[in-house]
Structures are given as structure tokens and as C-alpha cells.
């Protein structure tokens, strides 16, 4: 165990958690401006200390456990939910050679681990002993399982084009400015399906039926308060950021960009933030659709489409049609 193997995860984890808290502020200000209002403004100059105030508040809150809740499951659920969301950052290379663990099955690890948060979600819903939470958890399992398949298939398109599962290889294959999103038809279609699938896999509007405030009042996290709620929020936003990083890596050329090499991670983060803002923009523009409509969209539209796209990409790669 070398020193870098010990320090790198620590650094990455801290940076990620810091980024996640400030990304909530970015989302709130961006959303507020789209709604003709100002977001957080008073805490710190232009609200810059708002995430810290929120974190402090959540830490100081009383930890309420419902009497009839299944204690062990209820207490473990936030951790089981948070762990996969943090683990996905292990495989992302922030610059050539700068990553925690550059596995040669990088993207497979990412997709497999990010699908494990369903377990945490369902534990939260079941352990709360609350009809609303249970309904939401059942919907969540349905939805995330249905959307993981299009997610995987659309993420496999860059894998096919690059010819390797290793994430740094995929990023290197886009060096020279020709990102996978620029590929004539398959690049854009794959990006579109990727965005739709991540929206659904992260329970973002228009697919956030499982935390639908208007019917289910926060869904599976309705009984959580204080630090456990903070962990669940952290996990959700970490998953969004992780998927944004993955999207930036797969489609937008990761650390490619004008300027010297050490600007690479900054470009990477910028692209991830742009993807995050795109997700936020979609979130604050649409109403949500019902769960049966979400599942219909996944199984009837996205699955065949992504399968066909994968087949087409395979043919393109084998016959070297595209440049």
C-alpha cells in the first residue's frame, strides 16, 4: 500500500463532498434565476455560505426514529445508499494518470456499483414503516431497474467506439478534439439516450415520481431527519455529479480542451458542471410523468432504441465506416 493509494481516495472523497454541497447552491441559484427570483442571498455574500449553514443545521437536528420502524434496516439504509454513490468516483480519472483506481473494467464497475443504490433505497422505504415510503420504494425499484438497461447500452456506445472498457482509454480515444458526441448520428443519439437514462436513474424530474412531493411527500426519505437525511441527499447529488462526470468523459472528451495539460481536470469539471446544469435545466422546466408512463417509455421506446443504436455502432466499428 503506497502512500498515494492512501491519500488519493481521501483527497477525492473530500473534493467530491465539497463539490456536492456547493453544487446544491449552484442548482438553487440557477433554478431561482430561471424562475425570476434570486436564490439564497443572505447567508454569506450572495448566499455562498448557504451550503455550510445547511450542513450545520442538518447536523444539529434531532434524529427521530419512528417507533415501529425496523431499526437496523432503517439505520443502515442511508449508508447503503451513500456507499455506491461515493464508490463510483473511484474509477473516474480526473486527468491522465490522476485517479483513484484506473480499473481495466472501469465503466463496468461504475455501472454495476451505481445500480446497487436500489438496495439502499428499498431498505429506506421498507424500514420506515410508512405507506408512502413503501409505495415510493416500490416505484423506485421498478424505475431504476428499467432504466439501468438503456443506461448501460447507451454508455456502451463510446466503449465500442473506443474499443476498451477502461475509462482513461475512452478519454484518450477522444483526444484531438473529435469527441464522441460529434460522431455523425450515433454520437448524438447515444448522448441523448444517456441523458434521458441518467435522469431516470437518478430520480430527477421528469422522472422523479418516487419523491413526488405532491403525492408522496418526499417518498422513501419521508421519515429521515437530521444527519441521515443529509447522507441521503449527499448520495443523490453525488450520483448526479458522478453521472455528469461519466457523461463528460464518455461523450465530451473528458480532459480535452485548449490550453496546457494541467488545465485538464478543470476542463473536465467544467464539462461535468455543464452537464449538471443541463440536467437542472430539464428538471425545472417539466412536470413529472406517472410511473406507468415512465416504465412504458423505458421498455417500449428506450430499450429498443438503444439496442438498435448499439447494433449500428457495432457495424460502424467493424466496417470502419466513420472516421
Amino acid at each position, binding site marked *: 500500500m503506497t502512500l498515494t493509494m492512501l491519500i488519493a481516495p481521501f483527497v477525492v472523497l473530500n473534493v467530491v463532498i465539497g463539490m456536492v454541497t456547493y453544487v446544491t447552491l449552484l442548482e438553487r441559484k*440557477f433554478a*431561482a*434565476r*430561471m*424562475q*425570476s*427570483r*434570486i436564490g439564497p*442571498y443572505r447567508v454569506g455574500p450572495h448566499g455562498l455560505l448557504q451550503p455550510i449553514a445547511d450542513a450545520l443545521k442538518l447536523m444539529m437536528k434531532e434524529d427521530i426514529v419512528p417507533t415501529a420502524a425496523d431499526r437496523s434496516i432503517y439505520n443502515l439504509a442511508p449508508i447503503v445508499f451513500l456507499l455506491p454513490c461515493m464508490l463510483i468516483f473511484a474509477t473516474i480519472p480526473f486527468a491522465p494518470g490522476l485517479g483513484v483506481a484506473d480499473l481495466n473494467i472501469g465503466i463496468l464497475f461504475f455501472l454495476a456499483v451505481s445500480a446497487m443504490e436500489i438496495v439502499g433505497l428499498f431498505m429506506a422505504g421498507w424500514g420506515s414503516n410508512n405507506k408512502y415510503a413503501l409505495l415510493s420504494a416500490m416505484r423506485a425499484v421498478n424505475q431504476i431497474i428499467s432504466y439501468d438497461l438503456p443506461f448501460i447500452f447507451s454508455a456502451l456506445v463510446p466503449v465500442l467506439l473506443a474499443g476498451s472498457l477502461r475509462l482513461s482509454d475512452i478519454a484518450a480515444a477522444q483526444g484531438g478534439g473529435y469527441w464522441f458526441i460529434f460522431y455523425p448520428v450515433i454520437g448524438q443519439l447515444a448522448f441523448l439516450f444517456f441523458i434521458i437514462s441518467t435522469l431516470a436513474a437518478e430520480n430527477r424530474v421528469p422522472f422523479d415520481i418516487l419523491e413526488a412531493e405532491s403525492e408522496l411527500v418526499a417518498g422513501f426519505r419521508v421519515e429521515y431527519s437530521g444527519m441521515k437525511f443529509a447522507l441521503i441527499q449527499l448520495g443523490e447529488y453525488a450520483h448526479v455529479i458522478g453521472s455528469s462526470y461519466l457523461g463528460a468523459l464518455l461523450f465530451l472528451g473528458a480532459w480535452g480542451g485548449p490550453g496546457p495539460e494541467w488545465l485538464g481536470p478543470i476542463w473536465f469539471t467544467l464539462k461535468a458542471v455543464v452537464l449538471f446544469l443541463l440536467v437542472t*435545466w*430539464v428538471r*425545472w*422546466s*417539466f412536470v413529472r410523468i406517472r410511473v406507468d*408512463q415512465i416504465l*412504458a*417509455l423505458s421498455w417500449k*421506446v428506450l430499450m429498443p432504441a438503444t439496442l438498435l443504436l448499439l447494433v449500428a455502432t457495432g457495424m460502424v466499428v467493424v466496417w470502419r465506416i466513420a472516421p
Partner: protein
Amino acid sequence: MKGTEPTVIVRAVLKAMGMTLRNLFRKPVTVHYPTTERKYPERYRGLLALVYEPDTGDEACIGCRLCEFVCPPAVIKVEMLKTPERNYAKSFTLELYACEFCELCVQVCPTDAIVMMKSFDMPTADRREMLLDKDRLHTIGLQHERTWATGNKLRDMQAPPKGAPRPGHAAPAAPKPTEAKA
């Protein structure tokens, strides 16, 4: 989602997102209260107050109890004090926490003694502080700016005295030609 072609869906989605983007670049409508003061209109119904007569400086209230009689939630309590020259109000309590701000008391007052202010600033942590006695009502009357409406003006707005212009009434404007909007 059935029955709509992909191009129609994509165009509609982009239109909706474009609308949100357009609002991103509009100026926010937030008013930074309390650092910025909002400009209240002339007839704003704010806090209630008792005032003094402008020429003599004497209390304007004659204790006639018409406001007590007309108040719907019955928050005003007045006791009259009779003196040889004129009557006064011996005590005047107004429970502001129950007041509806309907301006009926202002409308009936014969001497324009009770008026409303253009401000509602009375933050308090204890509801008992909102039980206003006569001294506090007079203080409020000196602290804030009055609205346009007094009893006589409101009554004259409804029944102007012969030959005099009607207060609070806009001069008739030339009607603009309007197109019938379907």
C-alpha cells in the same frame, strides 16, 4: 406519449426549455425587503392610528363610538368622556391582532380621527403588544405616513357634496379603440 412523432415531441420539449432559458435572463422580480422599501400605493390599508386635529392640535376623536359599532370583528372599545366644550374618548383600545383591516371604522368616523397608515411594520414576539391603547394609537399616527383615505374623503367619494369635485375619482379619459380579442 403515443401518437406523437419524435420531431413534434422534440420541438415541444425544446420550446418549453427555451421558455425557461428566456426567464433565466430576465431580471428577477424579488424586492429586497427590508433593505429596500416598497412603494405603497396611496390607499394602502396599513396600521390604524388616532390623529390630532391639524388646526388646534387637539385630539380629533370625540368618543362617538361609531367605529365600535361598525367594526365586524368588534375589536374597538371606546369610552366617552363628556366635557362642557366637546367630548373626548376616555379610553380607546384596538386589538390589532384581531383587526381585519377592512377600513369600515375609517369610513364612518365623522371627525377623521381614526385613519390608516401606509405601513404595516409592527413586528412583535408577543401578541399582547398588539393591543393598542390610545397613547400607542397616537404614537403610530405620528410615526408613519398616512394613507389618502379618511372618513370624509371616503364618504365624499360615494356622495360628493353639491358642486364639489369627487375625491379619489379619476378624470374621465378618452376611450381607446379596442380590437375585440377572440
